């Protein structure tokens, strides 16, 4: 299966996403929140496309490490950049951005964390790539691309000289 991987292809996806976001959230003075690390890159790219006045205030970043459901399995994550929501989320429309949507567990954790800060009016989820493998009744509102991948394959966003996606086999990683 061909996946959008080059800078140009990613740019096209981001343009498309920006259009959908504009039509869904215009006039609602949304606040922008990116999930570490890839979601923050995507959120920045979207903010650039939507212009200075679309989102109210600075971008927030979430690190969901302390809200994950796998602490009892794998313990603490090695390094965690703290979350930073430099605004009140109460009664606001939020745009939550992540790079890849897979099981839905990251989104679940992010929602829990957001609610620790307050009670937003709504949360819209935008992701660059939605892949198969959903495990929870949660799905993105806006997705740049939807792709089918074998279970053993991972897709990961990289940011070296521009955003690009890479496929990785989890078996290969174990063999390393």
């Amino acid at each position: 299966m061909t996946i959008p991987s080059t800078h140009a292809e990613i740019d096209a996806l981001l343009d498309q996403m920006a259009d959908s976001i504009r039509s869904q959230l215009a006039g609602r003075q949304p606040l922008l929140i990116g999930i570490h690390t890839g979601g923050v890159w995507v959120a920045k790219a979207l903010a650039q496309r939507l212009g200075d006045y679309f989102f109210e205030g600075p971008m927030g970043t979430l690190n969901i490490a302390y809200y994950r459901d796998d602490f009892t399995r794998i313990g603490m994550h090695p390094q965690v950049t703290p979350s930073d929501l430099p605004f009140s989320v109460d009664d606001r429309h939020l745009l939550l951005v992540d790079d890849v949507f897979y099981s839905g567990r990251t989104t679940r954790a992010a929602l829990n964390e957001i609610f620790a800060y307050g009670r937003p009016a709504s949360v819209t989820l935008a992701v660059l790539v939605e892949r198969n493998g959903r495990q929870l009744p949660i799905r993105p509102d806006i997705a740049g691309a939807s792709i089918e991948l074998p279970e053993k394959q991972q897709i990961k966003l990289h940011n070296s000289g521009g955003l690009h996606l890479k496929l990785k086999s989890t078996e290969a990683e174990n063999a390393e």
Partner: protein
Amino acid sequence: MQSNQLTAQGQLRHFLTIEGLKKPMLTEIMDRAEQFSGITQRQVKKVPLLRGKTIVNLFFENSTRTRSTFELAAKRLSADVMNFNISTSATSKGESLLDTLHNLEAMHTDMFVVRHDQSGAAEFIAQHVAPHVSVINAGDGCHAHPTQAMLDMFTIRRHKTEFHNLRVAIVGDILHSRVARSQIQALSILGVSEIRVIGPQTLLPRDCQTLGVHVYHDMDQGLKDVDVVIMLRLQLERMKGALIPSAREYYRCYGLSPEKLSLAKDDAIVMHPGPINRGVEIASAVADGPQSVILEQVTHGIAVRMAVMSMALGAQQQETDA
């Protein structure tokens, strides 16, 4: 005493003493504490990290600050906390320490936070608990108080950023202070440029120089050009042993007055692990003054204890899985 506080992977399984730890570990504790300190500003001051874990505060010796900040730290991590104050009357019922422990273990406890008036008590307990239990030392006799030392390091780092160019003075009853012992170890591991201890001969350990510190009996000389002044509580009960002539005499020689503080650097910070004896080791004007960070230390105690608790239980988890 061989402390087995690290896992085979070098992670913190128990936290018993600063001694023997490496700089990256101390830095990790402070970095984690930094991440946790933000949680206090949220509407819900809690993260679900330790949900379902049971933590027992096992206090064989009185404490207000330490016990309550451990309790709050555990609650902010969503753990269940039980406070167990073991007075001398309870032990007189005849149950041995180990029997008490095994009973608490039977309640499926994941962590003991231990304070005891005997040096080595936490270590002893760590050696005897079931493999799935972590032990945190909340002060044992004159031996160690590692979380206090780490919250002090965290407070220093918040104000001074770097450790290598710092001159730190610890003033008072070093001999009986587990806090001072842990602080000196932490400061040397973090590589401060100079550690001074200031106090009368009778309140300094005999082997002071071997700790890598400079000894001063004259406070005016000792405070000159320091960046951090750490005052220790004068344990009034020690006066019975005639180690110092009187509280007033002690204040005259080793109390931190505004005049004495002016000998330190202009931006020096003043710390004290509490409880403070106003007018005995520190003047009210200093304790409440602009250079004092004493109450910040209390606040930081929560984040540092959250860091240590989650690290120990996280390491525990990985070890069980391995």
